[in-house]
C-alpha cells in the first residue's frame, strides 16, 4: 500500500532524513517511534506530499506522490502534528470545507455524520473551533483526515494533548480504523505504540534504526536472556546462597549468576543470564528437585520496548550513559513490565566486548 524507497531529505547541509526505506502492507498499523527531532514528522510530511524529498521515492498504492500528486493525495488522510484547523469556522463548516476540498463523492450528510460519530464530535458540530479544547480540536483534526474514507491514514502524534480517557478512546478508534485502513502513526509514547501497532519502525537521527514487531526488534538488538529466580534453600542462611549460586553456575547454558538481595527471610533472589540458546528452565527444575530446593518465583526479564528504545537511541556515542543505565533497566523489568517471549530463542550473536565487560563489573559490584 505504501512503499518508501531510499527517502532522503536535506535542509541545506543538515541531513534530516537519511535513506529511509520501508513498506507498509494493506491493513497494517505501523508505528513510527523516535526521539524528538529524529525525522518522524519530516518523513510523514514527505509521505503526504507536503514537502518534497531531496531524493528517493514515495509510492502510495503504486502512485508516486511527486509524479501524480492528486491521485496519490486522494488516497491519504493526514493528521499533521498541529491539526490544520481554521479556528474561526464552526466544526461543521470546516468539515464541509474539507469535504469539498477533497472532492468527496460520498453522500455528504451521511458521511459527515458517520465521521463525526466515529470521532465523537457530534455534540460540538455547531461550535466555533476557536472555542474548543485541545482534545476536541485533535478529534476534529482526525475527523478531517477520515473524510472521503482514504485507504491510507497518516497520523502524526494523534494523542498529544488528550487526557487519559481520550487517549484510550483514540487508541481504540485507531485500532478500529486499522481494520479498514492502512495506518501509519507516530508517537514517542511507547505503551501507545505497543498497544496499537502491528509493526514498529524506530527512527533515530534520520535513519531507520529498527523495523519489526517489538519482539523481533528485541531479539535483534540483544542476545541476552535474563531471568530472576527466587529459590528457597533448606537452611535459610547464607550457606544456601553460596550453594545455590554455585549449582546454578554449573547448569548448561548459564552464562552468569548473581545473587541478589534477601527478599524474604533467608531466601535470596538470583539474576541468571543464559547464552540465549538454551532454555534452562527444565534443567533448573530438575536440579531443584534433586537438591530439595523450592522455586518460589521465576520471572523472565527480556527487554521492554522502553529498553529497546533507550538502547537504540542512546546507544551510539554515549557508552557511559548506557552502562550506567543498564542496571536500572533490570530493576524496571523486574517490577513486572516485561514482554514474555519465552518461546522464542534469541538469535545467536556475540556480545560486544565492552558491553560484556561492563556487565561483569556491574554484577561483581552487586554480589556483595
Amino acid at each position: 500500500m505504501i512503499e518508501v524507497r531510499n527517502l532522503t531529505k536535506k535542509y541545506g547541509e543538515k541531513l534530516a532524513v537519511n535513506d529511509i526505506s520501508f513498506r507498509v502492507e494493506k491493513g497494517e498499523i505501523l508505528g513510527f517511534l523516535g526521539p524528538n527531532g529524529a525525522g518522524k514528522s519530516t518523513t510523514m510530511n514527505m509521505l503526504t506530499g507536503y514537502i518534497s524529498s531531496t531524493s528517493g521515492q514515495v509510492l502510495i498504492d503504486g502512485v508516486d506522490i511527486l509524479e501524480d500528486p492528486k491521485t496519490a493525495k486522494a488516497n491519504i488522510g493526514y493528521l499533521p502534528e498541529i491539526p490544520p484547523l481554521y479556528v474561526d469556522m464552526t466544526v461543521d463548516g470546516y468539515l464541509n470545507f474539507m469535504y469539498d476540498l477533497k472532492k468527496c463523492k460520498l453522500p455528504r450528510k451521511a458521511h459527515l455524520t458517520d465521521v463525526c460519530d466515529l470521532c465523537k464530535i457530534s455534540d460540538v458540530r455547531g461550535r466555533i473551533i476557536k472555542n474548543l479544547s485541545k482534545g476536541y480540536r485533535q478529534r476534529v483534526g482526525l475527523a478531517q483526515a477520515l473524510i472521503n474514507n482514504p485507504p491510507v491514514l497518516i497520523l502524526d502524534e494523534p494523542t498529544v494533548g488528550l487526557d487519559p480517557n481520550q487517549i484510550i478512546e483514540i487508541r481504540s478508534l485507531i485500532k478500529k480504523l486499522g481494520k479498514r485502513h492502512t495506518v501509519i502513526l507516530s508517537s514517542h509514547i511507547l505503551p501507545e505504540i505497543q498497544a496499537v501497532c502491528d509493526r514498529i519502525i524506530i527512527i533515530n537521527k534520520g535513519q531507520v534504526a529498527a523495523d519489526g514487531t517489538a519482539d523481533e526488534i528485541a531479539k535483534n538488538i540483544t542476545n541476552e536472556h535474563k531471568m530472576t529466580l527466587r529459590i528457597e534453600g533448606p537452611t535459610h542462611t547464607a550457606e544456601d546462597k553460596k550453594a545455590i549460586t554455585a549449582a546454578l553456575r554449573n547448569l548448561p547454558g548459564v552464562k552468569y549468576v548473581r545473587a541478589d538481595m534477601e527478599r524474604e527471610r533467608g531466601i535470596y533472589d538470583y539474576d541468571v543470564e543464559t547464552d540465549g540458546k538454551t532454555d534452562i528452565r527444565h534443567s533448573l527444575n530438575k536440579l531443584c528437585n534433586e537438591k530439595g530446593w523450592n522455586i518460589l518465583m521465576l520471572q523472565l526479564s527480556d527487554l521492554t520496548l522502553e529498553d529497546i528504545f533507550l538502547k537504540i537511541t542512546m546507544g551510539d556515542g554515549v557508552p557511559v550513559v548506557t552502562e550506567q543505565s543498564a542496571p536500572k533497566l533490570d530493576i524496571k523489568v523486574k517490577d513486572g513490565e516485561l514482554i514474555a517471549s519465552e518461546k522464542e530463542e534469541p538469535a545467536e550473536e556475540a556480545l560486544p566486548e565492552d558491553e560484556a565487560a561492563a556487565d561483569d563489573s556491574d554484577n561483581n559490584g552487586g554480589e556483595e
Partner: protein
Amino acid sequence: MGAIYRREMGAFFTSGVAYVFLVVFYFISGLFFYNGVLAAGITDVSPMFSSMFYIIMFLIPILTMKLLSEEKKNKTDQGLLTAPVGLWEIVLGKYFAALTLFIIAESIVFIYAIILAALGDVVWQTLFGNYFAMLFLGAAFIAVGLFISSLTENQITAAIVSMVVLFVIYLSEMLVSDFENGNKFQKIIFKVVSSIAFYSRYNEFTNGVFSLPSIIFFISVAFLFNFLTVRVLEKRRWS
C-alpha cells in the same frame, strides 16, 4: 478551487475584514463622489475614479494580507497542500475570492450612477470604461498583494510591504518624470519605468481613453504575480 473560494469568502466576513474594507471603501468613494461630482455640479465621474487610485492602493493590501500568511502561520497550509488539489487551484481560489470582494466594493459606482441619472445625464461609456479600468487595476494589485502575502508569516508585514510596494510603483513614475527630456540613459529609465507604470495607465481611462493594451497589461501583471505565488508555494516544498 470552489471550496477554497467559498471558504475565503466566508472568512472575509467572519473575520470582519470584509466589513472594514467595504465600509472604508464606500465612505471614501462616497466622499469623492460628493466632492468631485455632486458638489461640483457635473455628471462626469472621471475625477472620482482618478482619486480612487490612492484608496485602492492602500485598501487592497488589507484584503490580501492574510490570505497566505495566516495559512502558513497556523499550519493550515498542511491541510491544503496535502489535499488532492493543485497549487493553482489554491492560489486562484484565494485570488478570485479577494477579487470578488473588490468587485462588490467598486460596484457601488452603479448606485452613484443611478443618483446621477436622477439629476442629469450620465455618460455611460465613461462610467463603464472607468469601472473596468478600476476592476483590472484592482485585479493586478490583488495579485501583487497575494504574492507578498505568500512571502511572510505575518499578516501585518504582508500588509505594510504590499502598501509600500504599490506606493513605490506609483512614486517611481513621478520620480522619473523629469527624465523624459534628459540624456539617453535617463530616457531609457523613463521608458522602462513608464512602461510598467500603473498610475498613468489607469489615468488614461479617467481621461476618457479606453486603452486595450493597458487592460492587457493589468491582466498580464495579475497572471505574472499569481504565477510567482505558485512558484513560492512550490519552492517552499523543495527547500
